């Protein structure tokens, strides 16, 4: 009892100390960084709403809500989550075919699936995603964000091009003057003033749909509670859940590396789920962690949970109270910001690395990019990448196999020595390593330096033994090391009396 109380006290002490560190360890830095991120989040949230085909307010409410909730529930302090491009791309079809209410229902279901993933600790599955797949993922994401801007740049007056170019120039050149004001904000403000002063007739954010006019209110999605609804939203929700967790865990890893601090991946999974459910309940779309914004946050000095909270709260306050001005922002300014996000997300070193990295890694990376760009589905791209890297790995390890042989002194026997890994990818090479045409009285197969991994390997050994026997050769398998022995004992047939009957006959 005493021990228990002591344990609880130590625990609560550690919890409070950690909480204090995670929330208030860096107050000034977190507030400033949160402010910078909030300013950058507004154009992104609007742009991603447009990609998904919903009103800007859906993305803005979502970004507010997800950022605020994840500040408490997330497993990676200092990471920014909000409405994202990766998620917006997945929901396009659902919005087009069934409308906003189904999107909100799908958002709730996404949250539930992510909480389940967190409860089952599926975060550990991330280790099967190789570096090349991750690079492919971010590159594909960058390309998709860029492509989503193209409709704003086709068939428009030349003024739009000029303004986009001016926006990019301000974004990249202004920091040379001062690094104390976010340059994307300067670009947006300057271009908005220019458009108003010159009275330019170009598209503005206000033309793209409704902006928030009040604080968000709680509401349940207006969909029939039926199995039919479930079948409509389930495929989208599961893809959203997977894509959201992928990008979140990947971003968490990036923030871990940048700040050299650990994070709780499973808590992050469940936290993303809670944030998405909250978002769905106030009329927001599903979201996840954002690579670009998280990098901006760390760069601006944000480290703690406070930065994420400030980003969300400031975002909402600015949008609700500065709505009339936000409406006036020309789309060209937004496009410039999104091009910056796309450029910043793309891993440019991966292009130069194509020359020096192994071909298989490059194929995995390019495969992930190509499949994602063509399907607009990051989950399919990552699946492709994971499959490709698994195949390449199997092929590579399968080559780690050598079969040598020496004839016996009397010339009537032969000893085969197998070294390396025997499994499905190398089973054929294993079987091909033996010469069955040679007339021999006895054969010894020494596998003491080999590993038998699976049924294919066991089957291949059986086949070889049986083939020799059918030629009238006596076979002796020696040196099955312990790992191989357990598999062979359980699965093999050659050392059982009816071996020939079982394996023969064809």
């Amino acid at each position, binding site marked *: 009892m005493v021990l228990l109380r*002591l344990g609880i*006290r*130590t625990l*609560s*002490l*550690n919890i409070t*100390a950690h909480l204090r*560190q995670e929330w208030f*360890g*860096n107050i*000034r*830095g977190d507030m*400033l*960084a949160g402010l*910078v*991120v909030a*300013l*950058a989040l507004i154009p992104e949230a609007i742009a991603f709403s447009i990609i998904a085909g919903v009103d800007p307010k859906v993305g803005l409410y979502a970004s507010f809500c997800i950022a605020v909730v994840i500040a408490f529930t997330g497993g990676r302090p200092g990471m920014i989550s909000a409405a994202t491009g990766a998620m917006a791309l997945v929901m396009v079809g659902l919005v087009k075919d069934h409308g906003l209410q189904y999107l909100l229902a799908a958002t709730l279901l996404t949250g539930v699936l992510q909480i389940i993933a967190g409860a089952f600790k599926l975060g550990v599955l991330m280790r099967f995603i190789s570096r090349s797949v991750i690079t492919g993922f971010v590159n594909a994401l960058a390309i998709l964000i860029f492509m989503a801007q193209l409709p704003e740049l086709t068939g428009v007056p030349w003024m739009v091009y000029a303004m986009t170019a001016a926006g990019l120039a301000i*974004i*990249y050149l*202004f*920091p040379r003057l001062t*690094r*104390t*004001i*976010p*340059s*994307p*904000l300067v670009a947006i403000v300057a271009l908005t003033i220019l458009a108003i002063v010159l009275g330019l007739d170009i598209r503005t954010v206000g033309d793209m749909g409704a902006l928030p006019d009040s604080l968000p209110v709680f509401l349940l999605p207006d969909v029939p509670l039926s199995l039919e609804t479930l079948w409509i939203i389930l495929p989208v929700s599961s893809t959203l859940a997977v894509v959201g967790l992928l990008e979140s865990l990947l971003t968490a890893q*990036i923030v871990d*590396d*940048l*700040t*050299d601090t650990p994070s709780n991946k499973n808590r992050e999974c469940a936290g993303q789920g809670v944030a998405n459910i909250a978002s769905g309940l106030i009329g927001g779309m599903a979201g996840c962690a954002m*690579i*670009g914004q998280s*990098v*901006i946050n*760390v*760069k*601006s*000095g944000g*480290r703690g949970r406070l930065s994420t909270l400030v980003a969300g709260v400031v975002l909402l306050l600015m949008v609700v109270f500065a709505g009339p001005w936000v409406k006036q922002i020309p789309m060209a300014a937004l496009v410039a910001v999104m091009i*910056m*996000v796309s*450029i*910043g*997300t793309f*891993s*440019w*070193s991966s292009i130069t690395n194509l020359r020096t990295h192994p071909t298989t890694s490059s194929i995995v990376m390019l495969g992930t990019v190509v499949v994602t760009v063509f399907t607009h589905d990051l989950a399919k791209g990552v699946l492709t990448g994971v499959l490709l890297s698994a195949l390449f790995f199997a092929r590579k390890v399968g080559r780690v196999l050598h079969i040598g042989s020496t004839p016996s002194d009397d010339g009537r026997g032969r000893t085969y020595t197998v070294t390396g890994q025997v499994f499905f990818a190398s089973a054929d090479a294993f079987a091909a390593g033996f010469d069955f045409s040679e007339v021999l009285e006895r054969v010894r197969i020494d596998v003491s330096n080999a590993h038998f991994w699976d049924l294919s390997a066991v089957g291949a050994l059986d086949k070889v033994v049986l083939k020799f026997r059918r030629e009238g050769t006596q076979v002796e398998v020696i040196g099955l090391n312990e790992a191989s022995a357990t598999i062979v004992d359980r699965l093999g047939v050659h050392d059982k009396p009816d071996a020939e009957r079982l394996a023969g006959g064809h």
Partner: protein
Amino acid sequence: MTSPLIKTGARVLAAIDASAYATSVASHAAWAATRLDAPLEFLHAIDRTTAPVTADLSGNLSLGSQEELLAKLAAVDEQRGRLAQEHGRLLLEQVRAQVAASHDASAEIRQRHGALVDTLLELESDVRLFVLGKRGEHATLAKAHLGSNLERVVRAVHRPVLVASREFRPISRFMVAFDGSATTRKCVEMVCASPLLKGLACDVLVVGDASATIDQHLQWARARLQAAGFDPRCQVVAGSPDAVIAQQATELAIDLLVMGAYGHSRIRSLIVGSTTTQVLRTVEIPVLLLR
């Protein structure tokens, strides 16, 4: 109770930082290690989270900004880390030389990355007594404030903690704050069992109104201490514990106060304030806190 009251064969671990208390902590630790005939170790914990970062608020993302940022942050950390390491090593060498000169004691030195509390908890299994300064390098010398780490450490660790005062004075008389409760009875048991205070002059102080029960408790304490070779003076003084303890410590020329640490729950101490914290704030002598 299966575990022995006192862990023998383990070391005295003193946490050193750049505060004004470093010299005193070292002397107290050397004194304790000599008396216990235990190995002495000085520890300096490098806590990187306290380091502020210069921010770049430009808020844009350019080509390879992630790689660039990583390189920049790593370079800053590297530089700071190297400085902190060097600084810590100098501190440790300094106190080692100091105790070698003043107490003829040899000491191991050790540097660890991490928060002080976590580091001490990690090393705890091999430690017999922790020695800490009343305030750390981040605290001011204002009398009412304790070091931010001290209370956290004292609540977290399971070994006795010797809280060093500003200056080290030779210790010849100690006082046990006693109230007859299980915690303070255990304090008396520990004092009797340990070689740390053997042969020193001893006082037992009960804060409260004299009563038959208190007399009984005092009888018990006196008997135990006498059996262990002490010759205790016992007294009962009414008043609020922290004020009485501080006043008696001055009046009786006490060099070391022995008391139980944090007998009450954290929630209670949030509301009414903890006696332990109060006493630590008010007394000007070293305090041995027994868990």
